[in-house]
């Protein structure tokens, strides 16, 4: 049978000739085989093959009629060094035996894989070109041949479509990469400031994406239907500005506070009507409102957790300290830097980092005075706790005071007293972190640890503040609810009085009162929404103003006052500010938390946030490039990526808690919002199930909600979590074991080394005389008539020396000569 490894030239002939050729072909093949076996040198074989090809060519020319496709490929193959499989070239598929067909298929697949993997091969361009060209020609020649007789055209068509599809995919990928917003800006920042600062902007962009989706949900499914299909402004009491407020409903000050016309619009909860289905589409407004609220939270959870999982995959859980110096040497240069100033800084920071690491390595566990350090750390924590408690009380006090002011009417107070709460919270957020920074100097931690403590404390500060704020809000809600009873009573009185007036003519036409005149029930949900919106606006303003003053003004002053100042402002005290990555990221995270908290009561919040992030992106990009200098100590971008995601997740959880609490426990206001009139907000689900779905579904749900079913289900989930956690723990341990195995030698009694050739001197059965080429304990000995390095002191080898006996790992190192 014909051997592999030969290329042939063949022409396709008619059936009759084919038979003859086949006979001839096999004879020739046999001849070739014989010749192949006879010669060993490649060159001779090639020569012979050429001769044979010429002979065949002449013969086939004589005997055949060329009447069909030509399957000529190039005859010469110059790739002598390739290990590519060159399969038997009988090009007529009908005459190929199944094994040959298989082999041909394999070869074609291999070539395809080769072409795809070509990008990742470390070959010079010329070699890539020639390989690509050759593989493509091979494929062209034989791919078509593999298609069976009648389906050949279809096969070729499929191949062509595949190629077109590949091209399309490639173009599409290029297009999508070009479509990513702000990519150029971020790359520019990266080249000036390094990847840590750029990571903040990438995080900002990612948040922008999330907020766009949330905006789409709330805008498209809640605000637009109500605006288009709900009852218009002024048709109902809850949708109209009350008569008393009408005079200043259009004032800018009122609008800025989100009162007046802004309050009675689709932006807030109170505007929505509790009618079950609105418009000609019969859009279920209350249901949609509820589901959008739940959906935003669910979507956010999904996205954050998916991102965390992806980050965890990438980092792969490596051990940070085992290759400390090697990583510093080989990977610390940031190839993305394209700016001499940044390069200078990078050099300096690399040098500093080396010096630091050397210092740490040199000074061995020198705890000079551990008691003092511990005492100082306890003291520092105590101080920090005091700060946190103090700030919490301050906020509570301020909120209480503003409640008092609200009762007395806001007009009597100054601007400061009206916005006290927000201002105080923003100011605390600005000054307390600095205070924490100063306190942390007492602690004397490693800078990375100190940074984590700092972030943790700022986190606690913001959390504490936010929760105090919420508790104050809850007080207000309770107040409003008490008010409700009073108002309800008043309303019945008012209606009664109306009817009394018309009691004389009992058949009077229905009384028309302008909706603005109808007494209104209090609406705590709108109030909550307003509070959140105000908080976010003031936070945004504070951030921008701090940016402008703290960064821009400072830079301007330093730049221009430097000409006439005694000391060098640029190098000395104020100098230019650095971009505070962690502070900004935390601010972003907390803002997002507030959005999540308030989105249920103020559907306009995601829209507001999208606008805010958009402006922030441009403003901060400009500010960074214009007023900031690159950091001196380059903050490691990679390590904290999951740290921020984890904080985001915690915030998400904590911010949905209050919303869920209010939904579940507090009954909705009777006079405003899509759930007015219901006992609890989630009753809308019940109502939908009963009225819109067939009867059996509600039965199914009632069974599913049965505690007898829910509890075992929860138990099952707990068990599943426990199981998954224990398997993941065992995988981690297995990982560690394998890593250790890589570093330690095989245990001595193992004499069968998994290399093909045994290094000289080791025979099976030589106990204790294992060859350790690099071993410092081994000595040269004459073993038989060979020089051998033999280790005879393994029993004395300590753990630390074990690594040096790595000569047995011949299967890791390729072809090392001992």
């Amino acid at each position, binding site marked *: 049978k014909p051997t592999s490894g030969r290329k042939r030239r063949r022409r396709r002939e008619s059936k009759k000739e084919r038979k003859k050729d086949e006979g001839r072909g096999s004879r020739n093949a046999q001849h070739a085989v014989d010749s192949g076996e006879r010669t060993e040198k490649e060159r001779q074989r090639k020569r012979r093959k050429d001769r044979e090809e010429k002979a065949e060519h002449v013969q086939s020319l004589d005997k055949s009629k060329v009447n069909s496709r030509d399957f000529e490929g190039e005859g010469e193959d110059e790739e002598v060094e390739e290990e590519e499989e060159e399969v038997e070239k009988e090009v007529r598929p009908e005459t190929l035996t199944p094994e040959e067909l298989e082999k041909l298929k394999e070869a074609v697949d291999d070539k395809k894989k080769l072409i795809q993997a070509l*990008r990742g091969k470390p070959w010079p361009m010329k070699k890539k070109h020639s390989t690509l060209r050759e593989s493509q020609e091979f494929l062209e020649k034989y791919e078509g041949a593999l298609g069976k007789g009648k389906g050949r055209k279809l096969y070729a068509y499929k191949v062509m479509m595949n190629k077109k599809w590949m091209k399309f995919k490639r173009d599409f990928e290029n297009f999508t990469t070009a479509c990513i917003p702000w990519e150029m800006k971020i790359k520019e920042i990266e080249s000036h400031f390094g990847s840590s600062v750029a990571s903040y902007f990438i995080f900002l962009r990612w948040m922008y994406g999330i907020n766009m989706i949330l905006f789409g949900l709330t805008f498209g499914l809640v605000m637009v239907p109500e605006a288009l299909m709900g009852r218009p402004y002024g048709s109902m009491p809850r949708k109209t500005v009350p008569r008393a407020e009408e005079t200043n409903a259009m004032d800018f000050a009122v609008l800025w506070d989100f009162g007046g016309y802004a309050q009675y619009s689709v932006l807030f909860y109170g505007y929505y009507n509790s009618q079950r289905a609105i418009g000609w589409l019969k859009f279920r407004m209350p249901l949609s409102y509820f589901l959008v609220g739940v959906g935003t939270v669910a979507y956010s959870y999904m996205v954050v957790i998916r991102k965390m999982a992806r980050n965890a995959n990438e980092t792969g859980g490596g051990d940070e300290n085992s290759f400390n*110096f090697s990583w510093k040497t080989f990977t610390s240069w940031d190839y993305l830097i*394209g700016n001499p100033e940044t390069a200078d800084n990078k050099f300096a920071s690399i*040098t500093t980092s080396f010096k630091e690491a050397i210092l740490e390595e040199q000074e061995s566990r020198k705890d000079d005075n551990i008691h003092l350090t511990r005492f100082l750390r306890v003291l520092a924590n105590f101080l920090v706790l005091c700060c946190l408690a103090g700030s919490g009380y301050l906020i509570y006090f301020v909120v209480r005071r503003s409640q008092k002011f609200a009762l007395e009417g806001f007009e009597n107070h100054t601007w400061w007293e009206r916005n006290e709460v927000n201002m105080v919270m923003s100011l605390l957020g600005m000054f307390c972190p600095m205070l924490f920074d100063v306190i942390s100097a007492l602690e004397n931690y490693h800078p990375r640890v100190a940074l984590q403590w700092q972030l943790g404390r700022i986190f606690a500060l913001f959390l504490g503040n936010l929760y105090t704020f919420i508790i104050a809000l809850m007080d207000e809600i309770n107040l409003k609810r008490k008010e409700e009873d009073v108002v309800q009573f008043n309303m019945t009185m008012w209606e009664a009085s109306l009817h009394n007036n018309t009691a004389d003519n009992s058949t009077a036409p229905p009384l028309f009162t302008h909706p603005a005149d109808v007494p209104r029930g209090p609406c705590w949900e709108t109030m909550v929404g307003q509070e959140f919106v105000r908080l976010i606006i003031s936070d945004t303003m504070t951030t921008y103003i701090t940016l402008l003053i703290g960064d821009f003004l400072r830079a301007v002053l330093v730049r221009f006052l430097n000409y006439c100042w005694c000391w060098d402002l640029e190098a000395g005290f104020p100098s230019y500010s650095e971009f505070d990555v962690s502070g900004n990221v935390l601010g972003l995270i907390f803002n997002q938390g507030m959005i999540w908290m308030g989105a249920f009561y103020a559907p306009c919040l995601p829209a507001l946030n999208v606008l805010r992030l958009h402006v922030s992106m441009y403003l901060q990009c400009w500010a960074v490039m214009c007023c900031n200098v690159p950091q001196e100590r380059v903050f490691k971008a990679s390590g904290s990526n999951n740290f921020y995601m984890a904080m985001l997740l915690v915030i998400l959880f904590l911010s949905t808690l209050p919303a869920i609490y209010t939904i579940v426990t507090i009954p909705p206001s009777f006079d405003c919002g899509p759930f007015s009139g219901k006992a609890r907000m989630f009753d809308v689900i019940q109502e939908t199930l009963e009225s819109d779905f067939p009867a059996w579904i509600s039965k199914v749900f009632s069974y599913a909600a049965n505690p007898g079913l829910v509890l075992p289900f929860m138990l099952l989930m707990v068990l599943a979590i426990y199981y998954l956690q224990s398997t993941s723990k065992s995988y981690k341990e297995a990982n560690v074991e394998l890593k250790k195995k890589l570093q330690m030698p095989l245990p001595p009694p193992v004499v069968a080394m998994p290399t093909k050739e045994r290094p000289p001197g080791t025979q099976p059965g030589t106990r204790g005389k294992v060859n350790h080429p690099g071993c410092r304990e081994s000595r040269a000995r004459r073993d038989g008539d060979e020089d051998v390095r033999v280790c005879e002191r393994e029993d004395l080898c300590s753990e630390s020396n074990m690594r040096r006996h790595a000569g047995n790992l011949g299967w890791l*190192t390729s072809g090392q000569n001992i």
Partner: protein
Amino acid sequence: MGNKQTIFSAQQLDAYQSYVPFQRLFSRYRDLAPQLVPLDYTHQPDVKLPYELIGSMPELKDNPFRQRIAEVFSEDGEGNMTLDDFLDMFSVLSEMAPRDLKAYYAFKIYDFNNDDFICKLDLVKTLNKLTRNELTEDEVRMVCEKVMDEADMDNDGRLSLEDFQHVIVRAPEFLRYRHTPQ
């Protein structure tokens, strides 16, 4: 750019497009020396740009290893690059190149004497280039010893490609630090 027509055979274009964003890189190459680089590449002219031009590109200008990078990717080992070498270089430096490819070339870059091993001398040179000679000799020696300790698996006093890859594969930042020119 503009109304200049670059001439490449369709086959060449197709071949190149598989691995690099070709047009952009070719225009960068040409911009370095417009008088040397012809527009018509169908006859595969033998044009080499000298190292000084390559080293002055903004992406490489501040890189301490630019000379080694040019040497590794150039055909003659001196840093003078043809178009193929240029494309090679940026295809490896781009974000799309797989990690193993980058590790392979990183090894070559740090191997100053081209003997397929990173020996102590190579490490010393790497370190000095990285810190611009700011570390004292003692410190340099200490760091090189630590690196050898950490990375040298077979304990022959020098790092082979496998040792290097073993270290690099676990480094969290390695993938990020390469980019394509814009």
